[in-house]
């Protein structure tokens, strides 16, 4: 037999074993499918929360209000100092007049009628646009700390940094991440245990065959291969079911987000490469569980 025929022979033996105890295999496949689906959903939630944070991060600005009497030279020196800081994409300097003009546009023209020009607030201000590379809560906290330090700089009167919502989102994301990781590990462990048990039962129900094969000169690899393939096939089937389940759910969610919340989700809610990860992870999970079970229960 050439290697391909040999592999097909082992696959045939594995399929015969699966056919011999269909319900056990169905339960095993479904356990893997549920575990991988939930892992996929967590990955989806995490991926999208991160995308949202990136979006919010890119619209973040820090306003540094300078004292009225700040000279242009001093303002320029502060601007230079801020511009060089890591995480700052650009700095726009507004004079008192420019700031006042901007505020005027924000206010209701009726309110402004007859109002003294000096009554409209206006102050020299440096507007810092931040990089969208705020990948973690740590990055954000460092930026908040830096904003506090700017307040202490001479001629700086006030610093406004609207990062509270983002900080909250980071906190929520951290919780989602922790719960997701713990729950995924528990689910994967239970799937591992199911495949482990299925293979153990398969070994037990075939102990006569295993003994005869060993006495007739079968190598360990010959005896173990069908069990390993059985585990991998269970994992592959579980992954396929999970991909269909996550895919359907994803379509539903995308439709919901687009039509009900009128948000534009681009390009997709699905993390890139997730299908590939599930297709690799499923069989790998099955293979590991079958290998552990063989190591524990097969004595040849």
């Amino acid at each position, binding site marked *: 037999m050439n290697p391909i025929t040999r592999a097909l022979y082992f696959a045939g033996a594995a399929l015969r074993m699966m056919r011999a105890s269909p319900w056990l295999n169905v339960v095993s496949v479904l356990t893997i499918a549920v575990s991988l689906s939930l892992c996929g959903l967590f990955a989806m939630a995490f991926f999208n929360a991160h995308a949202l944070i990136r979006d919010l991060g890119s619209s973040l600005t820090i306003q540094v209000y300078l004292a009225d009497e700040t000279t242009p030279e001093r303002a320029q020196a502060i601007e230079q100092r801020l511009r060089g800081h890591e995480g700052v994409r650009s700095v726009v300097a507004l004079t008192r007049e420019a700031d006042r003009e901007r505020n005027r546009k924000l206010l209701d023209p009726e309110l402004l009628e007859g109002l003294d020009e000096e009554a409209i607030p206006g102050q020299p201000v440096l507007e810092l646009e931040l990089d969208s590379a705020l990948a973690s809560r740590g990055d954000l906290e460092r930026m908040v700390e830096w904003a506090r330090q700017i307040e202490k700089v001479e001629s700086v009167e006030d610093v406004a940094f609207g990062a509270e919502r983002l900080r909250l989102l980071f906190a929520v994301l951290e919780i989602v991440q922790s719960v997701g990781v713990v729950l995924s590990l528990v689910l994967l462990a239970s799937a591992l245990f199911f495949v482990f048990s299925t293979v153990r039962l398969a070994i037990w129900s075939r102990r006569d065959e295993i003994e005869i094969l060993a006495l*007739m*000169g079968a190598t*360990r690899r010959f005896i173990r291969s069908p069990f390993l393939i059985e585990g991998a096939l269970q994992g592959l089937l579980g992954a396929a079911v999970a991909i269909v389940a996550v895919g359907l759910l994803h379509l539903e969610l995308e439709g919901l987000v687009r039509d009900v919340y009128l948000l534009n989700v681009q390009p997709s809610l699905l993390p890139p490469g997730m299908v590939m990860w599930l297709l690799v992870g499923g069989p790998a999970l099955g293979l590991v569980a079958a290998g552990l079970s063989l190591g524990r229960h097969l004595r040849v």
Partner: protein
Amino acid sequence: MIQLYNVHKRYENGVVALHDVTLRVREGEMVFLTGPSGAGKSTLIRLLLCTERGSEGQILIGGRNIHALRDDSVPFLRRNFGVVFQDFRLIGRRNVRENVAIGMEILGLPRKDIERRTEQLLEALGIAHRGAAFPRDLSGGEAQRVAIARALVNEPAILLCDEPTGNLDPTLSREIIDLLSEVNRRGTTVLVATHDAALIERYGCRTLTLEGGRLTLDRPRRDAVGLEASGLGASAVGTASAAAPPGREATQEPAEAP
């Protein structure tokens, strides 16, 4: 073909299954291994198959010392043997053809060769018409023939039979031993563990007697009278051991050193 030198088998619980067993079975011999239950017959077969390892002594198969054989080499040693058991040990999920084919599947032979050889063997053993049957549908005699076909499928040098007639009536037992004698006549070394004194008497092959783990008697093959009576040719078996004096005590050392 098979040489044992001062072989001991002592279990962890202190039971001694074999005690200082020295014997030699030549290529092409047919030998009965007898003794009461617990005498060590099955232990000896297990040691030959390396399903258990001896505590002391040397075992040579075809000149190769198996005492120090690595675990991953054991399967290749076992391919020298065909094995037949009292309880047949056919695989219930496989039909007769599939049971017989196992040995060739292990060797990875092409499907066509496997099918051809399986049909040949079933034909030769008179069970070709039962090829599609499952073990549960076979009579004892048929099941043992299938087991023998399975054991012979890769043309092993040595056929080990552990109480092959233990579950069969006297007529079927004779049929099976006739079959084994025929296999031996074609050149295979055959070792049959049995406590059926009538069969041993009838066939008159060289007989090794174990008692309490010791080899107490090595009785050489009786002259061809018994074999002719059983319908087999005079040239059948054990030419190498035929020259030895009758009733030779088993403690005699083999001619060759390990």
